[in-house]
């Protein structure tokens, strides 16, 4: 998490200004219509662009900041606060593994180890084929079905070794 300055993960800045797509602008402007001032929709705008691009690059961040009439630095302060705004590339699907207390009691540490074995990734990492990124997440509010995880927008409950094999066996991740 501490290698944000590494050129291997964050593309070097260039002078080419990325612009927002018409669809992104339409989505953001629809939010602005409900807001008292443009920068009030900062989080919505980040989510809209992330929905289109998968993550929020430095270039995307600057384009959003220009559209909201705020500084890129201020917007980055907001973007990096929220764990579900991705400032680094993620795979096609993000695996959100709950590691809060009820899932810990029911063995989420073992699930994490098995995911690492199956997909070859630890927390914060993405498979070589770019299909999955594994992240920990705060209690998902399904503790009666612990342990749980999400793959993309889908919640999986009462997860065990067999569930993980079914979910990820043909993924061929690894590096």
């Amino acid at each position, binding site marked *: 998490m501490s290698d944000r300055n590494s050129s291997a993960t964050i593309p070097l800045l260039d002078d080419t200004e990325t612009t927002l797509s018409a669809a992104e602008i339409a989505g953001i402007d629809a939010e602005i219509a409900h807001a008292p001032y443009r920068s009030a929709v900062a989080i919505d705008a980040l989510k809209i662009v992330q929905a289109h691009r998968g993550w929020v690059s430095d270039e995307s961040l600057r384009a959003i900041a220009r559209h909201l009439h705020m500084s890129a630095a201020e917007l980055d302060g907001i973007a990096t606060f929220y*764990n579900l705004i991705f400032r680094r590339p993620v795979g096609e699907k993000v695996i959100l593994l709950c590691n*809060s*207390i*009820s899932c810990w*009691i*029911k063995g989420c540490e073992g699930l994490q180890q098995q995911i690492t074995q199956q997909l070859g990734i630890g927390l914060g990492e993405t498979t070589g084929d770019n299909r999955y990124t594994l992240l920990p997440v705060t209690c998902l509010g399904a*503790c*009666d079905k612990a342990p749980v995880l999400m793959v993309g927008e889908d919640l999986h409950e009462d997860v065990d070794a067999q569930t993980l094999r079914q979910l990820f066996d043909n993924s061929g991740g690894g590096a």
Partner: protein
Amino acid sequence: MSLDLPLTRNVRPDRSPTGFAAYEANGGYRGLKAAIGKLAPAECLQIIKDSNLRGRGGAGFPTGMKWSFVPMDGASPGHKYLICNADEMEPGTFKDRLLLECDPHQLIEGMICAAYTIQADVAYIFIRAEYHKAAKLLREAIAVCYDKGYLGSAILGSGYNLEMQVHSSAGRYICGEETALISSLEGKRANPRAKPPFPQVSGLWGRPTIVNNVETLCNIHHIIERGADWFQSLGLTEDAGTKLYGVSGRVKKPGCWELPIGTPIREIIEEYAGGMADGYQLRGFLPGGGSTDFLTPEHLDLAMDYGTIGKAGSRMGTGTMIILDDRTCPVGFVKNLMEFFARESCGFCTPCRDGLPWSAQVLDDIEHGRGRPEDMDTLARQVTFIGAIGNTHCALAPGAMEPLQSALKYFREDFERHISGGACPFRDGGAR
């Protein structure tokens, strides 16, 4: 005798959502019609005050009193806001998801009645990002309500207008703190704010704002329609109404049930949750989520209400219990919680930003056999200084200290065994 359970009457066994037609056919939107145009906002407020409804998000503050601080009758011209806190993230808490996914119209009706009472003209549902299904259902339900004239201009032909929208969040537990939630809704980092001014006077964009939990708001129209006396009669003890109680951990049937408030803990754990799973014994439990103090088997016969649990040295919190069994390490249990709170600190104030990772590190050392006898004093000092309300900017860090301080009280010998033995006694041959 069957129980009168207003909040879950539309919850189906398969947890499929109740749509508009089914909701209205089962008496839905009668509370709305009883309130708007029939009762003055001040009359609605009096009913809620008389009902003794207390906030279901964890703090238990009386809802009517909270609302009574909102300036009324043109005392603060301009927008007023009602916000539903659907940012359910307290570890071990899984009750609002049930209400959101199974009966979205119930929340919307409660919100319209609440907004009318405080004369808010804009309402938001602040929902955590991961609740995709609930957000979609709520957006659909809101659209139906606009079509039916239950939202928008001149609701039911009255002079009352209300706009409602869903805001899907972008993560972080601290957003559940009401002033942090307001910061986040304004598009900022979710740092909590100093109080006063209180949100009722200066909240969202500096305007009067009420933030209430999902379960709290789901009660409002039932109370307005059926009366304060009815609501009071639902409770078994001094508290009023019903409560969504949950049990998770090593019990036979983990789950969430609406029961009369004040139901004995033993009944919830042994009857509804089916008792401990085979091969496990009860050692303790957090009564209401990850930031409440442990209670032990000696507390099983207490009534699950705000006052009783408070007198026992804990808090009812969200009402969703987390069970500590005899094969799970209490040190590991508290360490998991402390790492959670350390991760979720907003970083604004030093005791929380630096203190919680320090506590987590000490617990990690003890858990992995690197603990020293003086670590017990260090933990006790952290509880004293970080746990005191007023030493930190908000209640996150004091909440984080609650399970730790009570674990030091009830499970002290487990900590000491880790330190003297240089290893976790639960890891070898234990359940984990």
